[in-house]
């Protein structure tokens, strides 16, 4: 079930120059719609902005059913997301949610599950980690960034499992890119990955070589977000497929990536 609803900004925390964490609640005081899954996204309307005409698809960072809060991690990447990171408490944004097909939560978890995130791609992994832990799985996180100051929400991730870090300059964790981190060579049963496409491809390559189940979350340009316009398609084993409805999360075996 999809919903269109107004949400109010409860809090907007600037994490650093480029990122903000926004916490929303349903404006009419109703509970958060049930059934929001990790890896799904929302379509946010940026009001009164002809240059950002279409809604902005943003990953669910956390759906907290205890506080009825929806968290979105937003990167200031253009006029639309700029409006969001600058949002003030009490501002109202219209959303359509929840959309898309999220990450797999194994019914019988066996072994360590590694959640690999880079940049704004760490967003869905927080909610995924929380849900995996609640399902008695063993999530661990590998968070990658340019430098220590660019790492996001590390303390929040630590609440749900061990956190491994990779930075380009070695200022935190291992020096190098995510796919070069030693944890990827350890005993892992499953990988969930979200970040820049080169990072996801490199991680997918390792998963493929090592025979590890791996899901990635794609970020193709979208218009409608609900499977009507066929703008966001990815060329998959089943032909051109809507990322907004069949994805954004895909098993790497479904894709045609040359890995």
């Amino acid at each position, binding site marked *: 079930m999809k919903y269109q609803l107004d949400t109010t900004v409860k809090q907007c925390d600037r994490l650093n120059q480029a990122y903000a964490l926004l916490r929303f609640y349903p404006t009419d005081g109703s509970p958060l719609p049930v059934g929001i899954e990790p890896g799904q996204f929302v379509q946010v309307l940026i009001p009164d902005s002809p240059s950002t*005409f279409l809604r902005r698809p943003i990953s669910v960072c956390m759906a907290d059913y205890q506080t009825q809060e929806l968290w979105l991690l937003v990167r200031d990447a253009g006029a639309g997301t700029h409006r969001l990171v600058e949002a003030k408490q009490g501002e109202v944004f219209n959303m359509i949610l929840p959309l898309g097909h999220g990450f797999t939560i194994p019914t019988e978890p066996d072994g360590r599950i590694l959640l690999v995130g880079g940049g704004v791609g760490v967003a869905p992994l927080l909610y995924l980690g929380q849900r995996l832990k609640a399902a008695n799985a063993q999530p661990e996180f590998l968070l990658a960034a340019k430098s220590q100051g660019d790492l996001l929400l590390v303390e929040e991730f630590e609440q749900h499992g061990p956190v491994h870090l990779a930075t380009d300059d070695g200022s935190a964790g291992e020096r190098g890119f995510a796919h070069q981190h030693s944890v990827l060579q350890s005993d892992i049963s499953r990988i969930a990955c979200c970040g820049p496409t080169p990072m996801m491809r490199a991680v997918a390559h390792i998963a493929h070589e090592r025979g590890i189940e791996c899901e990635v979350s794609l970020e193709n*340009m979208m218009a409608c977000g609900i499977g009507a316009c066929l703008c966001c398609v990815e060329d998959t084993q089943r032909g051109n497929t809507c990322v907004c409805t069949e994805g954004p999360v895909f098993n790497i075996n479904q894709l045609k990536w040359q890995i």
Partner: protein
Amino acid sequence: MANLKVNIGGLELQNPVLTASGTFGYGEEFADLMDVNSLGGIIVKGTTLLPREGNPSPRMAETPSGMLNAVGLQNKGVDYFIDHIYPRITEEFTTEIIVNVAGSTIDDYAEVCRRLAPLPRIRAVEINISCPNVKQGGMAFGTTCAGAGEVTKAVRQAWPKTLIMKLSPNVTSIVDIAKAVEAEGADSVSLINTLMGMAIDVKRRKACLSTITGGLSGPAVKPVALRMVWQVAKAVKIPVIGLGGIMNVTDALEFIMAGATAIEIGTANFIDPAISQRIAEGLALYCQENNLASLSDIRGII
């Protein structure tokens, strides 16, 4: 209560609001978010004789007050529609379902119509001779009077029910094309399809679309669409269906005042998935507030 019913070449609609092909899927995508049966009808995705994969990604670019698309008629073909989609959506919806038909050859168009003709719930087709995103057919037929006339003639023989021809704005005189299809037996014309455009990503030094050019839609095209609807409505006797950047009730009223019998909501469905229902309700409210018995009191008053 005002009477919002309109008649499009024998097809009676409960109100003049339709959804434009390619912007509303098969209606099912919107069923959680609005009452699809509140509409005059839905026009489903462009359907071709054989399945089409469409164009490669990227297919979409956002532009000021609009968007470019180059989907390229991705669809599973008419037989899949008949066997799988038609049974589903006719069970789910009571409103009119109009199929948008596209083709690479004149025979393709006619054959798709022949296969759709036995379906009782499909009482109208909209023939797409205006898609800017396919190499063969599509707009090629819609940019000359002879080509548009020939497709109309062939389809008219294959399709006994309401026949709507969807026209391209990428022509010197859309009025001449409209007259040509009217002369060959079209029951109605719908206009405009998207305007050809392009965008360049300066940072990457590449075109934003895989096909370089695509079709522009959204409020950016509305003044052009409105002018064309006004010109065509003055020039033909068959009903005109207006579309192009309609975002709200006021926009819809502008098209009706310019002479449109019905309207289609397209890109606006992406911004507000319930907008078509809101516009249908808004038109009823407008009539009530202005003491109009029907929209014909204001239709074509410009």
